[in-house]
């Protein structure tokens, strides 16, 4: 080919879209639906993940040390704890019983002196930060199994429930993305196949005149690309609306204390980029596959 005729390919792609408008419309609708379902689940996963990482910041438990331990023994114990899997080596702090008592009393100024003081307050303890919430229970058990750890206090059942939810949502999001991507590819392929079929005589004439495969293929790929991008643009604005509506519903129901959504303004660029890329990839790949058959002339 002497020239890469971009203008021609784009013009042909556009006119092809309008020459079978209904099918193109259906394809765009499918892409919109797929992207929104995909986007909603991804946004849910992102939000749950965000909340989880907040919880993980506070991911600590206390391990009380046997009173009979000497300072040397405490130091060795601390090293052992740091070496346990999933324990943040920089997140292990030794707290003396005096410090603990001060801290405790600060929160109980109105109580009678020492009246409600729990036993543990009189023990030295480690505050231990756990890296991965998912393995919280195992980690606590591993620490307690060390000789010299008398007892522990952990309040993280909520967080563990969250991990399960996050994992489920993420898995579901992946499965849905895979299924919907396949469905969109299929729809685009069929649109292209229809377009190519309705133009099979033109294609045969082109091939007879010595058109290269690329020359025949490009207008169809451009068509798929345009359909994908159109779907992505529509899906983006709809997704924005859906997200805002869900955020508002949460706020109205007073659930915001439990569950707050990230601001869309913080993530819109990422959402738009992912939508456009997915739309373009689905469109170009789908039509690229479909047109191969028509080139065998």
């Amino acid at each position, binding site marked *: 080919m002497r020239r890469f005729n971009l203008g021609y390919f784009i013009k042909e792609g556009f006119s092809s879209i309008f020459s079978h408008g209904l099918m193109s419309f259906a394809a765009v609708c499918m892409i919109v639906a797929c992207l929104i379902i995909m986007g909603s689940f991804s946004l849910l996963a992102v939000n749950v993940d965000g909340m989880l990482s907040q919880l993980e910041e506070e991911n600590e438990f206390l391990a009380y040390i046997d009173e009979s331990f000497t300072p040397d023994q405490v130091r060795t114990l601390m090293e052992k704890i740091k070496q346990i899997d999933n324990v943040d080596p920089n997140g292990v702090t030794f707290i003396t019983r005096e410090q603990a008592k001060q801290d405790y009393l600060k929160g109980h100024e109105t109580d009678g002196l020492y009246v409600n003081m729990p036993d543990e307050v009189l023990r030295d303890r480690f505050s231990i930060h756990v890296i991965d919430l998912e393995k919280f229970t195992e980690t606590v058990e591993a620490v307690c199994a060390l000789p010299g750890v008398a007892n522990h206090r952990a309040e993280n059942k909520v967080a563990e429930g969250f991990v399960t939810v996050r994992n489920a949502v993420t898995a579901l999001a992946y499965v849905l993305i895979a299924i919907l991507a396949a469905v969109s590819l299929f729809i685009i392929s069929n649109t292209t196949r229809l377009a190519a079929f309705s133009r099979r*005589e033109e294609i045969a004439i082109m091939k*007879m005149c010595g058109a290269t*495969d690329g020359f025949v293929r490009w207008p169809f790929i451009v068509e798929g690309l345009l359909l994908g991008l159109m779907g992505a643009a529509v899906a983006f604005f709809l997704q924005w609306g859906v997200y805002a509506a869900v955020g508002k519903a949460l706020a109205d129901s007073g659930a915001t204390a439990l569950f707050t959504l990230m601001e869309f303004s913080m993530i819109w660029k990422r959402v738009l980029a992912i939508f456009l890329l997915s739309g373009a990839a689905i469109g170009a790949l789908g039509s690229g596959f479909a047109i191969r058959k028509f080139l065998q002339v």
Partner: protein
Amino acid sequence: MAAKNRYNKKADASIQRLQSSGREMRAIMIRLIDIHKEYDNGTKALKGINLRIEDGEFVFLVGPSGSGKSTIVKLLTAEITASKGRVIVNGYNLNNIRRWQIPHMRRTLGVIFQDFRLIEKKTVQGNLEFAMRTVGASGREMRKRIPYVLDLVGLEDKADAYPNEMSGGEQQRVAIARALVNNPRMIIADEPTGNLDPRRSLEIMTLLERINAMGTTMLVVTHERDLVNRFSKRVVAIKDGELIRDGQGGYYRA
């Protein structure tokens, strides 16, 4: 088009080798060596065809319906491949041609069919532009070339007409113009007058003869005896997939 030039050079070299001891020094446009073609359903369409057509020749390929004429055309345009034997077109050896070379080979051929194969929703001008754009011609080249070929086929005032506004003879002239527009070395016409009345048929055949006289090699497939016998040309006759006669200034006999 560096690639094309390179291949033409290569082609010229192989043509030199193929030429038999200086009987004639014209380049070989088509060479079929012991061609057999069996279709997937088992039909043996060609059974050992040998044929050699040189640059500038006008050749009628005749034979009854079903004798394998169109099969030969499809072999020459690389639409199908031979089951056995060698096919050389314009220096391209179609037995081991690469897929990406096929378009370049086809650009050296103009092909014409009985059913015209024009794009109905494009004007005459549009149909010719379509063919030229296919090979990457510029707008300037189109504006220069299209009026010239339309004039050659006698349709200089029909550029803006649509195919369905034209007679069969005129539509076939458009198809001839389209075959010529990319300046091929050879034209292959498969029953170009099959849909036309005798007078239009004669006009079309005369036009093809004129184009041949200007230097384009011509292979015309037909089963119309009267038409063939009006021209004194080389006639290659096949029957049941076998070549039964090949003679200069020949007549088409049953």
